């Protein structure tokens, strides 16, 4: 351990975090494949998540084809439709968004932003990715087993999830459970790393209250995931036992195919409680990293410090804590004791307070900022608008009396796609445009980026806005076809066809983005180390892309918070976190 002499600058104590004992790869295999470098693991996570996410995107096209033009496509039958719904939901929520935000962005940004050389336990971190990959492969294999993937809906509610008649009852449901258990084991290995790195491996001067909000969001989400995934783990194990061994944890006595089944005495509600004790925090596991990242995007591209940093941090923590006591708002119509609804509706609506604080603070950060309408900024703005929209419909669904008629309609589909589908994806895309230059050393093409933004943003609204209306009409979700129900006017059918056309268009337009990713890697304009003139540590690395060990010889020392943009008197409109107070160039005549 090298003791760096105390420099006598106030607020910068002597080094107590020793240098990381880095793993030094010796061959191509350990450098790029079985790599223990968080940056490589991050890219592996991101590519795997994107690949399986594209599968889910194609599944959504198939669903939209069926919904928009029922009876036209003979290759989609009712069972397949249910399988598409299930796999689309499960992949998007867990295998894409969770893995991308925590495994992808978390791995890349945490060590760089807190000033560490790597995660604290790189070997465990590497195992995390390989177990995740195995989970993805097991999940993907369900498309090729007899009976296909499970069609139980992404919530996998028993009893129907494991009864005959539900597609995928032979293999699909078993492999789904196995895949989830693997995912949780893999995630735990990574998640422990992220938490310990943030808590115990920050560089000198990096206090928790100087962390960029990106790190706060990812950190809080990871802590939540470590406490919420156990419930899904237990639910998966018990459902697997019900299916394989014939236990009756979740299975009541019921008649299956005209015969009394072997089950009896179990509680389907128990599964729902376990599932949503995981499931609701999961919403915020996806949302909190998005909140954090979007705060940094807005501050950087509006050249202004984030408004109310401390409130932003406490709001993240408060949302994380509250999200553990709201789960049963997913179960108002489940048959649980009805008066529980009072409690869960109250806690649900209380979450609106910290969330509103965040939205106001984003808007107030933009207020009188020097807004650069770069592609990351466009996506950040798109996120705020989409999130407010999705959040407002959340107030409808959080109230028991309003929820009861709306539950299981397209209104719910519109709500959660806006709030935890489109909104986080907006942030993912904005973040990729923002950090791509750091990862590759080249800028993404701006024209393609703007086209991508406008098609995605407007398209998302054309898809999901009409769905609210369909839901208010009473159009149910998860139905293979609507038939000739009299309460559904014919305009609803043409609206469905319209939504499908837009959905396919927006889906295909994502190919522009993928092309941009590949094209810019070779032909993109060179970005330099800090193209956005940002303050946070990852932009101050000696090399771009950051080299082995991130920081060259010496770890950076942090002297200030992450948001010194447009500081009055400073010559530049940003002051990096590692710039000592004395070195700040002042405009002539300005008092220090």
């Amino acid at each position, binding site marked *: *351990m090298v003791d760096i002499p105390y420099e006598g600058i106030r607020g910068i*104590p002597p*080094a*107590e975090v020793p240098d990381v004992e880095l793993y030094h790869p010796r061959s191509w295999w350990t450098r790029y494949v079985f790599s223990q470098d968080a940056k490589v693991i991050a890219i592996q996570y991101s590519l795997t998540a994107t690949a399986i996410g594209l599968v889910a995107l194609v599944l959504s096209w198939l669903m939209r084809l069926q919904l928009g033009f029922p009876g036209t496509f003979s290759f989609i039958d009712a069972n397949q439709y249910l399988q598409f719904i299930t796999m689309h939901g499960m992949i998007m929520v867990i295998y894409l968004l969770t893995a991308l935000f925590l495994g992808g962005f978390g791995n890349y940004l945490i060590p760089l932003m807190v000033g560490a050389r790597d995660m604290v336990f790189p*070997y465990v971190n590497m195992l995390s990715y390989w177990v995740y990959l195995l989970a993805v492969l097991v999940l993907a294999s369900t498309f090729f087993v007899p009976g296909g993937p499970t069609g139980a809906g992404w919530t996998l509610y028993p009893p129907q999830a494991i009864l005959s008649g539900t597609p995928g009852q032979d293999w699909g449901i078993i492999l789904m459970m196995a895949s989830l258990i693997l995912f949780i084991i893999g995630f735990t290995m990574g998640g422990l790393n992220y938490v310990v790195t943030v*808590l115990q491996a920050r560089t000198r001067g990096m206090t928790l209250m100087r962390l960029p909000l990106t790190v706060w969001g990812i950190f809080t989400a990871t802590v939540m995931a470590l406490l919420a995934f156990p419930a899904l783990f237990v639910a998966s194990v018990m459902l697997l036992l019900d299916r394989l061994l014939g236990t009756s944890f979740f299975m009541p006595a019921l008649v299956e195919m005209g015969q009394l089944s072997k089950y009896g005495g179990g*509680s389907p509600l128990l599964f729902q409680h376990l599932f949503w004790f995981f499931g609701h925090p999961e919403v915020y596991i996806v949302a909190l990293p998005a909140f954090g990242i979007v705060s940094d995007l807005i501050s950087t591209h509006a050249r202004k410090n984030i408004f109310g940093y401390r409130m932003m941090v406490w709001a993240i923590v408060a949302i994380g804590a509250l999200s553990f006591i709201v789960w049963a708002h997913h179960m108002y119509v489940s048959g649980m004791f009805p008066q529980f609804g009072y409690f869960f509706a109250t806690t649900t609506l209380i979450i609106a307070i910290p969330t509103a604080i965040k939205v106001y603070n984003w808007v107030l950060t933009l207020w009188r900022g020097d807004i650069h309408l770069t592609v990351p900024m466009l996506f950040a703005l798109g996120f705020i608008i989409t999130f407010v929209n999705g959040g407002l419909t959340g107030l409808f669904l959080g109230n028991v009396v309003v929820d009861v008629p709306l539950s299981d309609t397209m209104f719910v589909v519109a709500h959660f796609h806006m709030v935890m589908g489109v909104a986080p994806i907006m942030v993912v895309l904005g973040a990729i445009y923002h950090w791509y230059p750091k990862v590759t050393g080249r800028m993404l093409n701006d024209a393609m980026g703007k086209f991508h933004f406008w098609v995605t943003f407007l398209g998302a609204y054309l898809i999901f806005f009409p769905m609210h209306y369909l839901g208010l009409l009473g159009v149910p979700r998860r139905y293979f076809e609507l038939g000739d129900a009299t309460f559904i006017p014919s305009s609803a059918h043409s609206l469905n066809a319209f939504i499908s056309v837009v959905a396919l268009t927006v889906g295909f337009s994502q190919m522009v983005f993928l092309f941009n990713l590949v094209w810019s890697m070779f032909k993109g304009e060179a970005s330099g180390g800090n193209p956005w003139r940002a303050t946070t540590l990852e932009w101050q690395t000696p090399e771009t892309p950051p080299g082995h060990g991130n920081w060259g010889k010496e770890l950076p020392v942090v002297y200030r918070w992450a948001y010194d943009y447009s500081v009055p008197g400073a010559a530049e409109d940003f002051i990096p976190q590692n710039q000592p107070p004395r070195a700040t160039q002042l405009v002539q005549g300005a008092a220090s």
Partner: protein
Amino acid sequence: MAETVLTNPGQSPARLEGWRGIAADWASDQRAFKNVSWGKAMMWIFLLSDTFIFSCFLLSYMTARMSTTVPWPNPSEVFALNIAGNHIPLILIAIMTFVLISSSGTMAMAVNFGYRRDRVRTAILMLVTAAFGATFVGMQAFEWTKLIMEGVRPWGNPWGAPQFGASFFMITGFHGTHVTIGVIFLIAIARKVFRGDFDVERRGFFTSRRGYYEIVEITGLYWHFVDLVWVFIFAFFYLW
């Protein structure tokens, strides 16, 4: 470098006591838990996560037990043994609990000797702990065998609610797996201690990192946790 040995060069201000100290630590840079190594912090956080897993298992079992309409078998009767003509309820479970709690004692002694760098005693005490653990798993295997011979299955049993067997095999099986993993780790670490890996700072096979005697304490944390969980299983499953 030594991630376990944290130097305090002396210039840093005196550490505050109590809540003010905690607030000062969390407001400081570099580490939130001062003088806690990465490995120990990681084990504590893992144990917190694992606590949630066992809590979910136990809560699910209690839900099943409370909501079933069929009588629940009486654990005192089910887990009784006839020894030398005497019918003694819960005798095997009492012995198992005693064995596991004794193993916590030997583990604590091993940690103590580890920090004194007494290689031989540390290794022996860890192996004794592992032996207690293996004994526990062995007696559990005996208990499982006995119940299976008497007709208890995950999907039913001769005395009442089918959730009895299901919960029993799931919870004790999951806990037994934890004990087994602990035994394997204890043996592996004991071997390293005995060989003197931590004195010569030999690098690990996979991780290429050096090990320290602190790993004995970290293994101990896990072991005490597994013990503590057993106390709850004992209380909620056998004594209820």
